[in-house]
């Protein structure tokens, strides 16, 4: 599908800096989005989610921004820590679909001490 967001396969940041991970989703009918973190040898771990009727949601040190106009999702991590090093995936759920999550390309976040 069309991709308008800037997707970087790997993002390297200094410890303490803020990180921004981008994702372009594929379906205009998607109504729910999730960011997952996946560490080596583990399954995806839920970080934060957002419904399509919102454009921003904040959690602890993380913020998700949704731009439906350009089908773009971003994850902001404040004060990035070494423990944040992992692969991050965005996932979308299409409205009316009864449960299938469609995962985007992952971004590997490397935190330099």
């Amino acid at each position, binding site marked *: 599908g069309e991709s308008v967001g800037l997707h970087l396969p790997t993002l390297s940041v200094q410890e303490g800096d803020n990180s921004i991970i981008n994702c372009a989703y594929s379906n205009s009918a998607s109504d729910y989005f999730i960011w*997952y973190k996946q560490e080596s040898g583990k*399954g*995806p771990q839920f970080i934060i*989610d957002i*419904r399509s009727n919102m454009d921003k949601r904040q959690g602890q040190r993380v913020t998700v921004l949704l731009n439906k106009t350009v089908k773009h999702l971003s994850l902001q991590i404040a004060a990035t820590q070494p423990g944040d090093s992992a692969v991050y995936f965005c996932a979308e759920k299409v409205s009316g679909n*009864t*449960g299938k999550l469609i995962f*985007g390309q992952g971004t590997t976040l490397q935190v330099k001490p």
Partner: protein
Amino acid sequence: EAGVVQSPRYKIIEKKQPVAFWCNPISGHNTLYWYRQNLGQGPELLIRYENEEAVDDSQLPKDRFSAERLKGVDSTLKIQPAELGDSAVYLCASSPRTGPSPGYGYTFGSGTRLTVV
């Protein structure tokens, strides 16, 4: 609360051999999903169960893959015969009901890493 438990963690088999993966979802979760994750890619749905019924298996290669969820709890995913291209991580996930739960999503297990040689 125990998470989603999968076994084995790793499996190496020769091509054309059969293989099976087992998943025990979180207690009380009615919906169970099997995903396949190829190296460097995001997970892709293979099959979804609502209790013991497979309600979405459109992505399951039915010529060689099969799955079951007897009694609506544990589930087994089988490949017979395995091919080189089946090498991947097979993830199981569960949720209380259909669809990801707000503020929670699905809970994934650690997966089974399959290598077909």
